[in-house]
């Protein structure tokens, strides 16, 4: 019995040493590790920029994750990510939590994105007004007949509440009214585009970078959804994309953000189908 206790103690001791070793390693490596979490809209930009940046700086290890703007900001406030990406501005509620956690949120706009309203290519419709879009999404109109289309049920496709695209769309197009409860909700921009492409009666909304050949983007209030109209501010469903950090970014994080804002980085932004900030 006594010997077993001794063994137990020794086991604990070894365990303690092992734990300390792991800790030490973690600390040593953290100098060159950057985690980016957040918006699925910003994800392709962050991914591409991270790859290019790591090619130039092999000592830096950047991991990029999606999850939604809300999740990215929540992670920043928990201290589990260095950089949060968001396709909407941080909310007052989140800022309150940041203050409570002792985190000083710094906002850096990196790109502009337009939300395109998309339909199936066989649908003859070309233009919808904001009011018509709102009527479709809130459930006042549920047949294409009601907005100048043919007699076909409208399959309304929306995004989950964790999506920044949803929150911006809700604010810009729906005026914060409720989306009809029987709207399909899917998890990503890509899924919206794919579902619209395979559903003749569908309407959906995606970031500018996700318009594919298999869907048709409508003009909104007679303004076509193009880079020029979004940049000039004429297209009504446009928004800025942001990076959030805790305090003024420093070290490698600073360099990475500077890289995205550089001419080279902004070229990547354009290459992914968004509009540069400068």
């Amino acid at each position, binding site marked *: 019995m006594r010997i*077993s206790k001794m063994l137990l103690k020794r086991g604990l001791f070894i365990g303690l040493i092992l734990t300390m070793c792991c800790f030490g390693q973690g600390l040593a490596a953290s100098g060159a590790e950057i985690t980016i979490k957040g918006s699925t809209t910003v994800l392709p930009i962050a991914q591409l920029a991270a790859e290019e940046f790591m090619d130039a700086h092999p000592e830096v290890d950047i991991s990029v994750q999606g999850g939604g703007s809300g999740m990215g900001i929540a992670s920043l406030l928990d201290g589990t990510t260095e950089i949060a990406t968001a396709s909407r501005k941080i909310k007052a509620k989140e800022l309150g939590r940041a203050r409570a956690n002792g985190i000083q949120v710094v906002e850096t706009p990196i790109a502009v994105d337009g939300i395109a309203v998309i339909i199936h290519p066989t649908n003859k419709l070309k233009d919808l007004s904001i009011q018509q879009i709102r009527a479709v999404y809130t459930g006042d109109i549920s047949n294409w007949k009601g907005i100048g289309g043919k007699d076909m049920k409208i399959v309304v496709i929306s995004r989950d509440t964790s999506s920044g695209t949803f929150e911006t769309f809700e604010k810009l197009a729906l005026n914060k009214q409720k989306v009809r409860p029987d709207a399909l909700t*899917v998890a990503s921009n890509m899924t919206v585009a794919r579902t619209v492409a395979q559903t003749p009666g569908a309407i959906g909304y995606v970031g500018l970078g996700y318009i594919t050949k298999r869907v048709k983007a409508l003009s909104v209030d007679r303004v076509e959804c193009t880079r020029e109209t979004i940049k000039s501010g004429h297209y009504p469903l446009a928004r800025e994309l942001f990076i959030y950090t805790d305090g003024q970014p420093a070290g490698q994080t600073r360099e990475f953000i500077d890289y995205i804002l550089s001419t080279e980085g902004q070229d990547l932004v354009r290459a992914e189908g968004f509009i540069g900030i400068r």
Partner: protein
Amino acid sequence: MLKIRETIYKYLFTIFAFASLIFLAGIIIVLLKESLPVFAEVGPFKFLFNKFWYPTYEPPEFGILSLVVASVIITLGAMCVCVPVGLGSALYLHEIASPTQRAILKPVIEILAGIPSIVYGFFGMVIVAPFLQDLLGIPTGLCAFTASLVLGIMATPTVCSIAEDALSFVPRSFREASLALGANRWQTLTRVTMPAAGSGISTAVVLGMSRAVGETMTVLMVAGGAAVIPKSFFDPVRPMTATIAAEMGEAVMGSPHFHALFAIGLILFLITLIFNIVTEIASRRFRIKLGLGR
């Protein structure tokens, strides 16, 4: 030396054995602690029987009736697929299949059980949903029917392998006695083997049901995600599991929305707990019936 080792093993395995108990207790405590605030805020009756789920609007609405209905409909639909197919294949494997067929079929069915649910989800979303949409002329293929079909296929191997085990636990003497009395194979199967294995088969069905009701990734991808009580089997729905998975990332910690998602988790937990208790009672009856004791 041997004695020391045995003592160590004894304590080590005691810890392991009680670890699950600790995990379970921890999970129950957290579930209760995190979900009770929403009952206080919304009221349990309103939470369970309001059909509007608008967690992020001002003011928010937390009614999970349509989510519960969605889970129930999809689970029942999945049972319509996995019970006949699963039991049928179990009976075939047990009664008719030649040793060679068994040697092929059994591992194949087990492989089916090992495919990750996201793969089923992707399969359902990219292939089954568009196919059914064209075939049936419905507005969208992402609906309760498609989700049921895919979940049913997923739960089939569970039902099949447990039912097959139950059938093979029936003592040989039962069948021999029946055949000796002049009953043919069909009569032996329906009047002797199946009643003897009946509780084991019901265990298989209930476990298949647990699998279907708790499945998340597949329904998130295939069910359509509309939080509404469906008018038909071909309308999109939003089951409880999919709601938690889709919204947990966004919910602000400690907000009513966060607590409401935990409360959905609690209700799911209670449902599977009931299933487990039913299974336990059934399998106990099964052992007693065969004279195997408790």
